[in-house]
């Protein structure tokens, strides 16, 4: 089997859909697009991107689509397909090398067929988030659909939330809440614990109820018998 030069594998990955809301894009549309891309650069750059025509069956100008495709690609986004396109829109999209992605009943809206799977991480855990900086006091970082990894410290007065696990490669001085959608299997890991609050699926401990022996230690927190446990990692 190893000698085979090619293996065919099924792949699912998360793509980001840009849903168009107006039939004719004008200057304010492009300004709004720029703003969206800039504000969500972490999310959008490097991720496969779809155009969603659900709300605009009347969007059928070749020039407008061309302009839109150029604008999106000029920002370095990997636009590869369209969804909810009328046959006319499909034909136009093909001219720009965009494929029609069928959104099946069984497929979650945000999953699309892979054209060029970039990273297997996207496949395994949609919505994971990695933050390569310190989370400063007053800042809030949320991973709504997966794990949150912070390579840096979380300051006192900062909050980090995830529906999955939270990993902090630094000192946790603020608040960390894992399993915010109710996942009781979620865990929190941090290299140095000085947290104001730790919570998993709504059960929490504050700095006052965290055992002093655990402070400044490399720990994990998890739920067992409906109690939040904190344990030193060796």
């Amino acid at each position, binding site marked *: 089997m190893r000698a085979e030069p090619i293996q065919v594998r099924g792949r699912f990955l998360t793509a980001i859909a840009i849903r168009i809301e107006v039939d004719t894009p004008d200057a304010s549309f492009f300004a709004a697009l720029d703003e969206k891309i*800039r504000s969500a*650069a972490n999310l959008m750059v490097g991720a496969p991107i779809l155009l969603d025509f659900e709300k605009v069956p009347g969007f059928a100008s070749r020039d407008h689509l061309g302009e839109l495709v150029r604008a999106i690609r000029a920002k370095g986004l990997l636009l590869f397909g369209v969804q909810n396109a009328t046959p006319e829109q499909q034909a136009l999209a093909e001219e720009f090398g965009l494929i029609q992605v069928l959104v099946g009943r069984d497929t979650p809206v945000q999953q699309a067929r892979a054209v060029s799977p970039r990273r297997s991480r996207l496949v395994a855990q949609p919505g994971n988030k990695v933050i390569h*900086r*310190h989370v*400063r*006091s*007053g*800042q809030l970082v949320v991973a709504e659909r997966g794990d949150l990894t912070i390579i*840096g*410290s979380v*300051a*006192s*007065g*900062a909050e980090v939330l995830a529906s999955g696990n939270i990993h902090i490669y630094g*000192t946790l*001085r603020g608040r960390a809440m894992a399993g915010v959608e109710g996942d009781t299997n979620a865990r929190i890991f941090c290299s140095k614990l000085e947290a104001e609050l730790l919570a998993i699926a709504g059960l929490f401990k504050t700095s006052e109820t965290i055992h002093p022996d655990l402070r400044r230690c490399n720990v994990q927190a998890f739920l067992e018998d409906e109690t939040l446990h904190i344990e030193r990692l060796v």
Partner: protein
Amino acid sequence: MTQLKDKAPLGKVIVITSGKGGVGKTTSAAAIAAALAKRDFKTVVIDFDVGLRNLDMIMGCERRVVFDFINVIQGEARLKQALIRDKRLDTLWILPTSQTRDKDALTKEGVEKVLNELKEQFDYIICDSPAGIERGAQLAMYFADEAVVVTNPEVSSVRDSDRVLGLLASKTKRAEDEGAEVKAQVLVTRLDQRRIDAGEMMTIDDVLEILAVPLLGVIPESTAVLRASNVGMPIVLDEPSAASRGYEAAVARLLGEEVDTQTERDKKPGFFSRLFGAPA
């Protein structure tokens, strides 16, 4: 515009900010501006604390204020009319603020226009931020190229500084336009070694571990600071003291870093340079 020097002015905007009040922002802004001017850089220090103007008193020119920053923003006076030249150093200028208006008188466009005009004439434009993180403080930092975050070695000051560092990374023109961070360095002021030894104050290492930015300098608690501000003298122009030497060293470091800021993006300081980069 005629220049004292042949080369074009540097036009660098540095904000002196902290979050918390009473940590020594205005004293530091005056001292840093004066120390830069002493080194022959044409320097202006601007008071952004509209309604609570203090800088002119620290600089000893409160009786010479006729027009101010707000007048210029609102087109009631020209910049030239509002700038006050220091009597001790002819490279040092002050742009005072209004005592009677409030921070709503500051507009982003107005501030930008004044700063752009100053950049054509000055090497360094030092913005003395008001306390807090509201409009006045955000406008003071918005156009900055670099930031000096003034911190006292105690938890509430450090935490507020951390908050300000977060804003510097997101709510500035550099961050919004280029996705680049404003280079920020921490200046620890009012350091009292006896209180550190007694365990009542945080150590420099504690402060740097939390803030995780380079250390610009350390200013010891000193009666010389109070004496100098009472007589309207920037501390570095007064007789030598531990505090004035601290500011001179901080400014030397600020200029030393100058070379690095020429590159488009600063490299993060390494762990060791953070720890050992400056004497405590």
